[in-house]
């Protein structure tokens, strides 16, 4: 059994508004998936609901993680089972040093701390000792924040990771570093769903399946050729189903 995460017909409500009205997807270990779609189509809401953020209420559907229904499990429990969801806009946390935070994270995950590993991973992501000494995300550039999110991915080696726009606001050098780290983690067995607006990161990561979200639903999925379609025709055309025949109906 290689299917780690299965989301079935998920309906999500935020402050009395239905923001996702049907999302079905599968993520298997060791593979990369992409979730694309126009702004406000519900991509982040889907990620947050899978994570178990209390503001995102699941009103219908199920989330199955390694055969277990985790739809009603509290957030830290899901994380402990091997789920990782990175934030699109990670907050600044004053007084909590990045290094200290990573040590606590490592201690939680593995029961012990290895500062050398933390330093090595940080350096692999172009973050040095001086970053570890600084407060988490305080005064960090957009690119640095994204790298901190990916650094945690590298450290935690989760079974499933959902990365919410790891590439937005990131320069080309950072993008390469971030993409190659994600690749490494996938090679070690993590299943990764990347939410993105850009083709660039996907050309590095080569997703095996692309999900397209629109109007609060996952409308279709297919291979990377969908990306060409999006580029040629735009979301509106695809979502209306005009180009549907070009993409493979997928999902289950």
């Amino acid at each position, binding site marked *: 059994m290689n299917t780690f995460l299965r989301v079935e017909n998920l309906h999500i409500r935020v402050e009395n508004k239905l923001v996702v009205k049907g999302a079905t997807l599968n993520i298997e270990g060791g593979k990369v998936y992409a979730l694309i779609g126009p702004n406000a189509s519900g991509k982040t809401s889907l990620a947050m609901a899978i*994570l178990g*953020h209390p503001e995102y209420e699941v009103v219908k559907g199920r989330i199955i993680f390694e055969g277990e229904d985790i739809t009603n499990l509290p*957030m*830290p429990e899901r*994380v*402990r089972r091997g789920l990782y*969801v990175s*934030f699109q806009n*990670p*907050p*600044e*946390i*004053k*007084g*909590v040093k990045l290094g200290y*935070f990573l040590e*606590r*994270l490592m201690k*939680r*995950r593995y029961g012990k701390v290895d500062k050398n590993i933390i330093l090595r991973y940080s350096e692999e992501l172009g973050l040095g000792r001086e970053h570890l000494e600084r*407060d988490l995300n305080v005064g960090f550039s957009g690119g640095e924040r994204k790298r901190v999110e990916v650094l*945690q991915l590298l450290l*935690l080696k989760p079974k499933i990771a959902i990365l919410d726009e790891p590439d937005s606001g990131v320069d080309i050098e950072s993008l390469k570093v971030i993409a190659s780290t994600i690749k490494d983690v996938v090679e070690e067995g993590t299943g990764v769903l990347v939410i993105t607006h850009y083709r660039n990161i996907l050309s590095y990561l080569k997703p095996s399946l692309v999900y397209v979200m629109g109007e609060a639903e996952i409308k279709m999925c297919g291979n990377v050729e969908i990306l060409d379609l999006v580029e040629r025709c735009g979301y509106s055309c695809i979502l209306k189903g005009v180009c549907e025949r070009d993409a493979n109906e997928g999902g289950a």
Partner: protein
Amino acid sequence: MREEPEWLRKFRERALSLIDKLPEPKYGARIDLEALSVERELREYDESSPVVSKALKRLHFTMKEERPFLLQVNDFLRKKYAERLSQLGILAEDIDTAVRKYEWLKDYWFKAFPMALNKLTAFHAAYSRGGFVLRVKEGVKLKEPIQMCFIVSSSSYAQLPHNIIIAEPYSEVHILTGCIAPRGTRYSLHSGLTEVYVGEGARVFSIMIEIWPEYVHARPLKAVKVDKGGTYIGSVIVLEPGASYQAFPTAILMGDMSSVTAKTVVTARGNSEVDVGEAAFLLGRECRAILVTRAVAFDSATVKERIRARGRGWRSKAYLECSGLILGDKAKIFAVPELEAISKDVELYHESSIGRVGENELMYLMSRGFEEDEAISMMIRGFLDPGLSDLPAPLRIQVESILERVAIEGL
């Protein structure tokens, strides 16, 4: 009657005659001084007694044979240590003995702290017992912290030690003090009065960690006088403020280019009534003061944070900060920053804020697998931490371990 020199007897008589005439302390919950007996001596403890080991554990202090505590515990080790310090040029002695030996003490007796400020200060001046004198000779620098521990275990007593620290010109000293009463101590008052004299170009670093159970009232009184180019850096960590806690340590920057960094962090629980802060008087030219107070209020605790700077000296600058984090449903925090410029060419700044734990930050930490309690504790640690920077390594390590306890056991 105790044997005390003439000058001190007269001083005490005058203080006694003033008690009834003076007003109640301006800040902090009212204490009925008449209901309290005055403790005769600080109790001596055996170092192996459970009271001591428990107290040290809660303070995160370690007993080191070569560096014992200067008070209350193990007379023999203490004497040996005092001898070693004296070879280095540091006089460390209990104040009741010192006052009989050294005439010069009268030049430091209530010369930084005003005796007739209120009923409590006069009461203290009349009845003080115990405490220590630390005098560091000119140019002597000792970087390993001198450790002090006050353990209060008597109920219905007022414990009134008087401490005098003198750093002669160009000397340097680091002091770590723990004040604690074991759980179960009933109604009592702990009011240590500390006067610090920082000589020309001298540096004094100090940390005080305080833990008071729910019936103890704590009124630490402190004044610091700083001469030309001298520096005082002090942090007070109040982990448990007891029934009520009030402190307003004041630095008087007399000399040109003298400076103070004074920080207080408090975590208040239950029904504690806390009134804390710091004050600085910038009298010399180009003085610098940084005053920081940070408080976390749980349950139905009330915390008043006061910070005050009065600037007079040419081109003097002060930066004041007080912030509060409210966690209890019935908790209250008041922040009262005061800036007084009494001449031109001074610059005074302050920043104050009171808030709750940020929802977004909390969710972020929980999204990485931390339970809510753990995440909140981490944020409390993060909130208190800036209140404790600027400390040299050994003292900093002590603070780290205390903060770590707050972070892990926090709630």
